[in-house]
């Protein structure tokens, strides 16, 4: 780890920093490689390349490509955790779509996504815009807001259970100030989902905040000063200069947040166990219950593929929308 602090001046440093002007992730592309620079030695190096790439490629094939293909196959089979397997074609998908609980968890997941994603983006963008370089000790604020994002989610959820539960911090505070009981957040039909979302936003926005903050830092001062000379207010400068300039980052963050929020599991699982009833049960918890509580791995795989198709859909939108929606210089 000392390497990190001593190797500061490595030649790549400035190169890496320029990449960040574009949205993160877009830096990854199959593109301009220094192939033109090195015409010779093709023969000698040809098998070294394959040899260097082999460990990673084999590992990735075994532990990602094979499982993903296998899961598609398993989703067409009756595959109990113990015992024989039989081919059943689309039977799992039919059962899935006939299961009322499945549609409940799809709706719950959608509800979570619709609440969580905008809240996360507004909070993270707002704070990133607030934490300009002029704010004293901004790096301390950044670190604070990032703590729950990088620490074990389970530990953070445990604390929030203490805040939410009857006689917990929120309830006790209300009792001693207003003399009223707070709702039993985690056991109340109307409150449970909001409680899960609030905790998740608290725990998750730090990541987008960092992305936006770095993107805002990269907006050229000259553009901002030009707007200010024209007499634009801070508000107008933000919407008409900074916001368009960081639109690639906003787009990227929106897509990533969408994808991760469709996979929400730990927060509802530990706060409410999906309850009350099935009020906060999400798609991943449904997959987990089907696979590991009811031990029906075929049906669970079908559920996982539904989730995967949703995520692929978002990825496709990201890919197509990038050109249209986003302002690249």
């Amino acid at each position, binding site marked *: 780890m000392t390497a990190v602090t001593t190797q500061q001046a490595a030649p790549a440093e400035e190169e890496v920093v320029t990449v960040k002007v574009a949205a993160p992730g877009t830096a990854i592309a199959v593109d301009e490689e220094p192939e033109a620079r090195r015409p010779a030695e093709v023969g000698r190096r040809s098998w070294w390349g394959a040899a*260097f790439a082999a460990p990673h490629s084999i590992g990735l094939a075994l532990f990602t490509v094979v*499982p993903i293909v296998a*899961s598609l196959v398993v989703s067409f089979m009756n595959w109990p955790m113990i015992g024989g397997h039989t081919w059943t074609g689309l039977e799992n998908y039919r059962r899935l779509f006939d299961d009322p609980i499945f549609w409940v968890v799809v709706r719950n997941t959608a509800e979570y996504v619709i609440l969580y994603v905008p809240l996360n983006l507004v909070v993270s963008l707002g704070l990133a815009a607030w934490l300009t370089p002029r704010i004293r000790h901004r790096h301390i604020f950044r670190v604070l807001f990032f703590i729950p994002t990088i620490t074990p989610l389970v530990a953070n959820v445990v*604390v929030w259970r203490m805040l939410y539960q009857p006689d917990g911090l929120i309830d*006790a505070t209300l009792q001693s100030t207003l003399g009223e009981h707070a709702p039993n957040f985690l056991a109340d039909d109307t409150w449970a989902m909001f409680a899960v979302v609030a905790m998740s936003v608290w725990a998750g926005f730090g990541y987008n905040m960092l992305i936006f903050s770095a993107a805002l830092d990269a907006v050229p001062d000259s553009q901002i000063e030009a707007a200010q000379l024209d007499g634009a207010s801070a508000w107008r400068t933000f919407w008409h200069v900074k916001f368009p300039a960081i639109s690639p980052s906003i787009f990227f963050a929106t897509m990533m947040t969408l994808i991760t929020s469709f996979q929400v599991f730990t927060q509802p699982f530990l706060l409410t166990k999906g309850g009350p009833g099935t009020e906060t049960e999400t798609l991943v918890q449904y997959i987990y219950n089907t696979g590991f509580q009811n031990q029906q791995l075929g049906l669970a795989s079908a559920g996982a593929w539904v989730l995967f198709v949703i995520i692929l859909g978002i990825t496709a939108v990201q890919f197509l929308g990038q050109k249209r929606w986003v302002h690249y210089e």
Partner: protein
Amino acid sequence: MSSGGTRTTGAAPRVRHAIGYVILCLIALAFMAPLIYMVATSLKPESETFTTPPTLWGSALRWQNYTDVFSYLPFARFILNGVLVAAVGTAINVTVAALSGYAFSRLRWRGRNVVFLLFLATLMIPQDVLVIPMYVMMQDLGWVDTVQALIIPWAFTALGAFLLRQFFLTVPQELDDAARVDGAGTVRTFLNVMVPLARPTLAVLAVFTFISYWNSFLWPLVIVNDVNARATIPLGLQAFFGQQGNEWSLVMAASVISMLPTVIILVLLQKHLVRGIVTSGLGGR
């Protein structure tokens, strides 16, 4: 009062700025409240964890909670498991990623672009979707409820290859040529020239890989049966937290301990973490 009298600049914006700063501090404080409450509760006697009106500090600071937690649950084992799993997984991931990142950027070989596209494609597959087939695979291998099942399946994620490839593309070709003139082959050039240069990038990758192993919850929940022997910290916390009659102060002490390593990493290496996140989308949840 104001020095010039041309315009009343200076005072008004400064006051506004100060008020804004105070509000920001209050927001930060409200944000930190759950974490402060966690630390405070971890130091309370158990009988004082739920009181009305709520108190921040108990009648005494009970540091003993932090030693009691090790007898209340097999916490030392959880820490050990967590460190072992994260360290070995990180070592594997960083090693294979350095090699493949080099192969994808500086070496020419048949099939390179196809393999690279496959690497790209795997990034779209979320871990949650892989959990079921991975479990079936672990059953076939007889790895259910083993340490290697916690490590190996996630040691080959593709992101590191991109990070390293991105880095190696920036290294001047002259360095290879110089090494070649000195008589170094591909392996020696890689080990003696490239790896030392890539150390900052390798460190960023290592930190993120370590943290993602350390925090991982769903996979341990699925694959570990004997929690006392094989759980990492998040699973262990969850298992004991689920029991009736929680010892809240001890659970909070355990939570504080589980957060310490990553908070320390965050404070010490924030610049590098930020760079990793911003340039490559590492560490996304």
